[in-house]
């Protein structure tokens, strides 16, 4: 085994230099040249301020915006750093709820969300993606049904015609890739930016 020490050390060093430094740095350089905006996180700026990333969901709670899905992300409790507190759409600590299919906590949460949504929105039924936490806690999308479900509430809060908002949702709906892959979806941040463009608050 001792005769193998030299090849082991040399190869580990050289292959590490190639795969751990040269490769990621080369990709960083190339990506920055070819796709600078995407390599930097697909950020969206409005009036010179970064308002978020088009790929990362953010929390919307007010009546005048379309809402995203429940998010199970958390953050350190400011009062006691050993504990965590719920912090929806915390983009520096991605996580799902990890509640199992027979969890009583899941049943309670879904029921609460369903009742709250039903109280806020006259439309029926409540789409399933609006009561289920996403895998990352940062899902930027909702289903087109979930967007249409919220149209009456937003229309009322913004004093806009529902028909106008339905057109907006349709324009913001992205179909399946190549007509086949994935699911139709609406990016909530893009939808809300378009909404602000339509009728500034």
């Amino acid at each position: 085994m001792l005769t193998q020490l030299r090849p082991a050390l040399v190869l580990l060093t050289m292959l590490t230099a190639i795969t751990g430094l040269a490769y990621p740095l080369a990709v960083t350089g190339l990506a920055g040249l070819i796709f600078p905006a995407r390599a930097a996180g697909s950020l969206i700026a409005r009036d010179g301020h970064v308002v978020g990333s088009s790929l990362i969901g953010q929390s919307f709670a007010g009546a005048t915006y379309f809402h995203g899905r429940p998010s199970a992300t958390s953050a350190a409790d400011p009062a006691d750093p050993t504990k965590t507190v719920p912090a929806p759409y915390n983009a520096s600590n991605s996580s799902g709820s990890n509640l199992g299919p027979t969890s009583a906590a899941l049943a309670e949460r879904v029921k609460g969300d369903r009742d709250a949504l039903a109280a806020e929105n006259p439309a029926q039924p409540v789409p399933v993606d609006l009561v289920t936490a996403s895998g990352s806690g940062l899902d930027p999308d909702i289903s087109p049904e979930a967007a249409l479900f919220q149209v009456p509430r937003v229309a009322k809060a913004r004093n806009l015609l529902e028909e106008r908002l339905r057109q907006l949702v349709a324009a913001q709906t992205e179909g399946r890739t190549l007509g086949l892959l994935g699911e139709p979806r609406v990016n909530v941040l893009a939808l809300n930016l378009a909404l602000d463009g339509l009728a500034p608050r």
Partner: protein
Amino acid sequence: MTLNGWMQIALYCAVVLALVKPLGLYMTRVFNGERTPLSPILAPVERAFYRVAGIDARQEQHWLAYVGGVILFHLLGFALLYAILRLQALLPLNPADQAAVAPDLAFNTATSFVTNTNWQSYGGETTLSYLAQMLGLTHQNFLSAATGIAVAVALIRGFARASSGTIGSFWVDVTRATLYLLVPLCIPYALFLVWQGVPQTLGASIDATTLEGAKQTIAIGPVASQVAIKMLGTNGGGFFNANAAHPFENPTALSNFVQMVSIFAIGAALTNVFGRMVGDERQGWAILGAMGFLFLAGVLVTYWAEAQGGSVLNGLGFAGGNFEGKEVRFGIVASALFAVVTTAASCGAVNAMHDSFTALGGMIPLINMQLGEVVIGGVGAGLYGMLVFVIVAIFVAGLMVGRTPEYLGKKIEAREVKMAMLGILCLPLMMLGGTALATVLPAGLAGPANAGPHGFTEILYAYTSAAANNGSAFGGLTANTLFYNSTLGLAMLVGRFFVKIPVLAIAGSLAAKKTLPASAGTFPTHGGLFIGLLVGVILIVGGLTFFPSLALGPVVEHLAGSAGQTFATGG
């Protein structure tokens, strides 16, 4: 289940199958040391490596020396990674000022990456510096994958050669796997991911002010370069905590599709390398056929279960499937398919939270790992795991007809069968033994986040994933504790080496044997009968070993859920 869903699955299978032959041909040439289209650029680099390392590329190794190389390489890789994790606070490229990783977590993470498990006790964006992600994790993603491929190629040589004392050179195999296969595939792949939206930057995290005026800190980093190899090398360790469910790791339906293809690409192509090297491509297709059968059966069950929906959601009147823990852009089908793919191969990346899958939908990933991840499997590990089962299947067939078993002209004798059984039995020992221990000790019982049978499944899944070197998790389990970090680390080591070493012993013993010409009495190993026998042996061995544990976890949970029962923690 929808027509569109089945079309996505069919397209996936078609693309993977289309890659088998061309990639198989290329890999065969690489590992036979023949000229490839990349040789003009890479051959001088390769030669320089060997010169500095003092290696003669033509000098091959006895299987024991090959084992020595494997162990030494793992050992040094472990030491390097452990050091980087412990020292990351003092090293550059740490814009978030991450502190040194704790000793037990560093042990667990280093073990996990060296063994190609990539279990995430660490939290990605909350624990690791960019340097630790690149120089630490990315480099082991390459090297642990290259090692797996090398061992598979060595075993193939055992079958292909006659009366030979050597099975190839570990140093040459590992260098070629990295230089000719993994790096050239990863560079365009990583750029494709950036095109889809995966970030690749050394800049610090971004502070945004949301439309509602809140502050959102967005973690970012050199993500694409790591995601490319984590998929292609079936490593699975995420840059972010949420792994491939995170929109920055897997932004679109297309990136998701390509990631699933890349998990299977090398593992599937290795069956073709096997066929080519033993001189009969049909042998490779037969093995791929057995893998394909088990894969499709798994996809069918998981897709069905997830489309049916979970008992809690269905009980409250929601249609549309089990969406808890899933992302809208992937939907039910691409999440279910990903879960089966990632556990069939030993990848362990997840694009949806397996912990929130339905009882039966989550059982299939568990079974895939318990069977030893022989369905395509980890790069290299899947093929050699499957060949171990082939030896057992051939042995069983020999017992039934009363002849000395033979495979590809090699007599399968006591030594091979003993080694094969050692490789097969070490997995249940760690999976079930570890689970048994954790379910009686307070330190183990403190882990599960869910109550009732689901909590038991969380523990079972953890030890299964660790021993099978998968790395996916029922993420609710609090595994970053001294107890879990150390016992799971041990399970990973046993699962890696107590399969690899017996496999190399088999390779050595087979290579030394004469190859007998086929006769009228030879059992043909490229047809449906053989495929059926192989699938049967895998299911019987797996079923007998693991059914009781599955009955206690997912089966009970399914029955309780169907009866409308829920389980509360602390109650």
